[in-house]
């Protein structure tokens, strides 16, 4: 027996609601049940069969579109589905949107087909249907593979090859950046950090630390990587950890903070200054080794934010501290012999400060 029941229009119209259900991984049957519960049948006075037939038409259409959505410019060029550009853009954007809880789980894993199997766990954990999880994983993987080796701006590359909005392209850029540098994000210690935290930090790093940053003089390489020259320069910051410098720095910072902080906070900071400063400088120096780069978030949490938090420092305390920490160095005469280090210090600290504050969940 063969049953055919298809509807094809000259204009391809997408039922927004059904597209949403499909993206969310609802099967045609589930979608029908969902609509039934929402009372469509009574409203339109139709039988379940008719609603189901419509759903199937749309699902088949989505299935056909999905092939083109793998490479969005194809969807724009194609002639099979006569749709207007707005609709095309919308379909693409929605296809590439993801649930941050799902991506948070994927983040830091290698985007290989081996890990695709783990989507079952992700689905279970996030309660998002497996199909949707797989789509999100595949999207990430596809975007990653496409732009991984590309020259030029990451965000721009994603925008031209996937026709995504600026906002979404930025999120993808962050994911690609994290994946490419293999930042550790999955450790239990980091579990309190949200996907948005990582996106923010990664975007800061792309803007300031990668090859596409303004400060970078050689744009030869891709901005999925950190600027090697910069990382190399960071080693010079070691001297800030030297005893005399550290002590002077401490004094400067504390006095600088006097008017703005409570006594208690100042006391805490004074006690922990040595550890904090060492941690910050160690991270900077470690960035030159790719293994340490991967652990940047772990280090930040373990060495900087956790101790400060347990000592009871508030977010604004932390901000004041980091500002003072950064600015006082400039006033001191540490970089007398290497004036270019001032710029390096600024480039490092600006981003670091923003990242720390972002992940500083009190």
């Amino acid at each position, binding site marked *: 027996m063969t049953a055919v029941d298809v509807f094809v229009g000259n204009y391809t119209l997408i039922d927004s609601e059904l597209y949403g259900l499909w993206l969310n991984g609802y099967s045609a049957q589930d979608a029908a049940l969902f609509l039934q519960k929402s009372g469509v049948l009574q409203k339109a006075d*139709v039988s379940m069969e008719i609603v189901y037939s419509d759903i199937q038409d749309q699902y088949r259409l989505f299935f056909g579109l999905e092939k083109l959505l793998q490479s969005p410019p194809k969807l724009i060029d194609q002639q099979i589905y*006569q749709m207007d550009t707005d609709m095309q853009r919308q379909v693409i954007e929605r296809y590439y949107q993801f649930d941050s809880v799902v991506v948070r789980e994927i983040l830091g894993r290698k985007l290989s087909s081996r890990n695709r199997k783990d989507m079952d766990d992700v689905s279970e954990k996030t309660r998002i249907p497996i199909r949707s999880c797989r789509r999100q994983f595949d999207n990430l993987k596809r975007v990653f593979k496409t732009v991984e080796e590309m020259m030029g701006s990451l965000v721009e590359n994603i925008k031209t090859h996937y026709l995504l909005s600026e906002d979404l392209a930025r999120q993808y850029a962050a994911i690609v950046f994290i994946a490419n540098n293999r930042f550790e994000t999955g450790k239990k210690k980091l579990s309190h950090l949200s996907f948005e935290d990582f996106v923010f930090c990664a975007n800061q790093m792309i803007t300031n630390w990668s090859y596409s940053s303004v400060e970078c003089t050689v744009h030869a390489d891709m901005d999925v990587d950190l600027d090697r020259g910069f990382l190399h320069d960071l080693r010079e910051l070691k001297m800030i950890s030297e005893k005399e410098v550290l002590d002077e720095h401490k004094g400067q910072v504390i006095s600088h903070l006097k008017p703005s902080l409570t006594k208690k906070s100042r006391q805490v900071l004074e006690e922990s200054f040595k550890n904090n400063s060492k941690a910050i400088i160690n991270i900077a120096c470690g960035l030159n080794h790719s293994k340490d780069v991967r652990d940047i978030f772990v280090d930040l949490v373990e060495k900087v934010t956790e101790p400060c938090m347990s000592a009871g420092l508030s977010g604004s305390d932390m901000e004041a501290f980091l500002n003072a920490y950064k600015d006082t160095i400039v006033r001191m005469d540490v970089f007398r012999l290497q004036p270019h280090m001032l710029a390096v210090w600024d480039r490092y600290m600006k981003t670091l400060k923003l990242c720390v504050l972002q992940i500083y969940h009190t």
Partner: protein
Amino acid sequence: MPGKVKVRVLAGRGLPVMDRSTDLTDAYVEVRFGTDVFKTDICKKSLNPQWNSEWFKFEVEDESLQDEPLELRVLDHDTYSANDAIGKIYVDLNPLLTKDPLKVISGWFPIYDTMHGIRGELNIIVKVDLFSDVNKFRQSSCGIQFFSTAEVPSGYRMQVINGFVEELVVNDDPEYQWIDKIRTPRASNEARQRLFSKLSGELQRKIGVKVSELGGNAVIGYCQCFDLEGESGIVARGIGTGVTLVRPSQMMPPSPLGVSPQFKDSPLPEESATPSSPPSQIIRCATSPVKVVSPHTQVRRSSDSDVSNITPPKGSSLTESSGSGSGLGSGGKAVTKLSAQQPSIELMEYPFFTMTSFPVGFIIHLGGVVSAKSVKLLDKIHNPEEPETRDAWWTEIRTEIRTHCRTMGCHAVLGYTEHTTICDEIIVLCATGTAARVNVTYDPASSTRIPPPAPAVVQEKPPTEKERDKKLYVDVNLANSAAQGSLHALYDHSSDDGAPFYNCLLCHVPYKPNSAPFPVNLSVCAICRKRKVPDVLFTTIDPPQEIQTHGKGAFIQARVCRPKPKSKGGESNAKEISDCLPFLEYELHSQLMNKLKLFGMNGLYGLKMQITVGESLLVGVATATAVFIAALPIPPIPRVSGQATTEEENNRLLEIQKRISERVMKNREKNDLLHIDTGQASPRSIVTDDSDDDASDLDLSSGNKETFVIEVDDANDENIVALLRESQLPEGFTMLNTHKIPGSTSLAANLQMFTQVWRQEYFPTSRSSFMDIFENLVKKICYKLRRMSPCCLCGIDFGVEIPEEKEIQITLTGVCCSTENVPDSVFELHSTNKGNLLKTVQGVTNSNNSGTSEGDDMMFTMEEYASEGSVGNLTGQVKAPLLRQTKVETTGTKMEGNTRRSLEHVHVHNIHKLKSWVELTPLHYIPGFKIERYLGNYNFFFIRESTSLREVGGQGGFMQMFVAEVMANVRANVASLGGNGLVSYRMNQCVLMCNPHKNQSQCLINVSGDAVVVAPEESFPIVVEPLRKNSDSPVT
């Protein structure tokens, strides 16, 4: 005409990956015409190759130029193994074979593979240089234009109707040749696809020769079919109406104002045409009554020849008057010559016309539907390769139709169609049409004056002064003195309103009441109160402008499914079927009749009857648009009669009667027919008073008229149950199968052309289960299009097949249009007499009368309209541009308003239609747009096969993709000619064969239509802009 075909291959895009190792493709293109082949270079390692080839030139003679398609084949080069095919493009060169040297085909064509579907696109340019005829003795049909459009194409004028043309070509089906056993499915499909396109070309060429022999230059209402007979071959059949068309715009120097010439000659005839019009009136007055009074063959002949003798001077004088105005004398001369060529209807072997709508004045009387059917055996054809046997079959059928037509006192068949159904060795040939009396030598000028086809769009130009005068004169002469006064008023209003004048003559029976060919209930015409009209009128044509209707049109469908004993052998099977056919037809007819009465209507337009034969089923479906024709009597509420033996049964009968009455009232209300009762009842009483001579007839007719009895065998009679079960269309939907929209609905814009393919197992259990299939399909369509409501589904076409023993396949095509409701019949307004509404229309009428209206006037009317609620909040925004617009524009804004009221995507359409979108429609026009040029008739034949059915989403996925691909191909072809629309789109064939166990499926689709360039009605761009900005704001 021989010619030189020049082809350039520019580039490709989106090619599939053919080389797994590199994920790229080394593509090149083979360009083939006939036996000559050229190749492009190989473009290595690219999915978007750029060839920029030289011009490949083919020198081709006339015949193959028309028959052969240009073939481009894209291949992937492989150094070691055989080159792989990516796909093909067939380009039909016929649209290029005109005298227009600038015509070129250029654009992105989908690369189509029968096994994989569309795989990327190819950018090509094709030109044809034609040489003038070298051999005078060879008949060429180059330059004969073909139109699927079943009416005079917009912008053209029909000078002569040369007559019915038909042709039939037979060939072996490659699918059934021995070689098919050893070749690949792809090769087989391609051979078949190529053959189809060749047969189609050959058919057109042969028909073209016939037309030019008749002296015509075009075929309209062209309809081409393929009969897949199986073992005995493929038959390609084409029928059409040979005509001589002229483009009035070509005969006149382009006016600087950019207005069509109608405007130009409107002031002229007022002075110069006065001497010439009286003779024409005299002719009409002299002939028409004669025809009515004594429709005997002898008299008819003489009167007709009279007309044709006198007409030429009339024609010439008319054109001269317009010609002199524009300073071109040659036009007038041509008309004289051509009009003289107009063959009289008696000289035509088959006085058949495949058009469905006709210029005003062409139809004199409509008789009714005539049809003929014949069951034949394919395995009894002696010489299957030759067309003789099939020719003889069709001759038989056509002769029968002609005879039927004569017995109805008619001499012409309008809206003529032919169709076949094949099941194994049985073929049933069917022909249907509307018997009518026509005037082939009608005033050719009137065809241009009556605004061209788009009835939806409000008439662009007010009818010229002269035309109105003339027609009034004629009508007044025909009408009797008693009704004259009211007629005057009526016609005055209708012509002022821009609506066509009405003529009740068309509804009068063409035969003498006492010599009716079959028992028929006649009554007196409700308009002129003089002549006889039947109680119902069934036709296969579109609503003629002259016939006045009330209310809206409604979709009506009769469906019959009868089980048939399985074939015991050719002869007995054929006998079985032909014995069964009359009963099936009778049942169809009575269903139609019952439903018509339930609607409270009395006329059918666009009736299409389709009989399908299956192995164990016989199916008949009749589809039509029901209307209320003003001239015909009000249909009574059907009365149930039956033998009730018990009290309970009696109660049930009463219950049925009650439900029927309720349904009729509900239908009347829905279709704006409620107020008609009062409007017509009172005049009738006047009639009885003063027409004593017809008294006896009247008694008889009124006796019959008041009762329409439905016989009920028992209270559970399936007939009645099914009738009452018939569900109503959801709120906001109207459905019609005609091209023109009868009554008060008019179309604003195309929203969506759709194709639904449905196929399922079916076991005939009860009558209602068969009905439910159709009811469900309609419901389904409405649900899908729910976001576009309120809308009108037009040009609805059902195709029923029985592909397997227990399977039914239905294809449903149509277009969803947004509607606007403007009461266009003033008669109606008078009877409703809603003060406000009436004032509105008069306002418009006034401003229209004064030609170009003053701004103040318009604003006033616009506001009036708005207060009626249809545009509401829109007025404010549109007011400014309106200041300099006339009535057409007013409607333009109104339709925008309506469109906007529907959904946002609907709105998006309207904006995008101004861009590079291609609109498809089964109608002859695109509402809201006017056709600027016809680019050529297209007949596409596609075959698609899949051996990985599950992977493409099963049967459904396969079909959905294929239909989408077919439409994409059609759009690409239209766009490559510079067109942006395809009108008269028709899906002639959809043959799906599936073998799910082998994971395999094959489908053939044949679609056709006329490629056109359309431009928005003038007001469109002006109005769209302000709306677009406001579209974000919530609609209150």
